[in-house]
């Protein structure tokens, strides 16, 4: 073990080169991931990934025709600070938009539970539009075993 832990100059240089290659393979700074790019295309602005928006779907579900979906935005729902809308998008469905939910301060709580169709396994996206104009993004991977004809 002791000999294995000795780093030769060659090994150090090799490690640095590998690290450089790994960095080069990551998307360039400012290049958004595909979900952010799609959301920007649909909603005009790039959303920010946020834990304030919780998207809850099963990781694996037998039937793509009726997949449970729930989300909640951590928000006081006051006149000054509320969720205006949450949009759900299924990028690998033939028609990507699933539904848009429009809230008001009188909603009290920005939480929804519903059921959707997924044509194939994919990352489902939710984008919350806040009253200050900020867009929040959450996504979750769902594997469906029987594809729902969306």
């Amino acid at each position, binding site marked *: 073990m002791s000999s294995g832990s000795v780093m030769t100059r060659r090994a150090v240089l090799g490690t640095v080169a590998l690290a450089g290659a790994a960095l080069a393979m990551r998307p360039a700074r400012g290049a958004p991931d595909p979900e952010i790019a799609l959301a920007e295309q649909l909603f005009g602005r790039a959303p920010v990934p946020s834990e304030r928006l919780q998207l809850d779907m099963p990781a694996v579900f037998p039937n793509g025709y009726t997949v449970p979906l729930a989300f909640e935005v951590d928000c006081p729902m006051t006149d000054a600070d509320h969720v205006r809308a949450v949009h759900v998008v*299924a990028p690998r469905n033939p028609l990507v938009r*699933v539904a848009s*939910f429009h809230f008001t301060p009188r*909603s009290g709580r920005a939480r*929804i539970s*519903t*059921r959707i169709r997924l044509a194939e396994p994919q990352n489902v996206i939710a984008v919350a539009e806040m009253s200050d104009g900020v867009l929040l993004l959450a996504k979750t991977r769902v594997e469906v075993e029987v594809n729902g*004809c969306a």
Partner: protein
Amino acid sequence: MATPEPRIRVPNTAAKGEILEVKALITHQMETGLRRDATGKLMPRKIINAFSCRYNGELVFSVELHEAVAANPYLEFHLRAEESGTIEFAWHEDGGAVYTARGTLTVT
């Protein structure tokens, strides 16, 4: 297709300021317009494309539904109890038909 039948669940009573859970479902095929019949012809789209909830006439919650909402669309959402009155629900179908339901809430 059978006539769509709305079903709602709203509490009858609530304390002022309480946040209520509301459930709304309508029986509906949600035909996507992407399926073909036995002869290979595309079946025309017929979905519930919008849902609204009014509390004493004020629009408090609404949804735009697309083809990927499952058949018999089910919605569970919330409302803040402010005053006694009616809570009205409307489901809008492609072609212009509207299906409605209403609940009565007493706020104490």
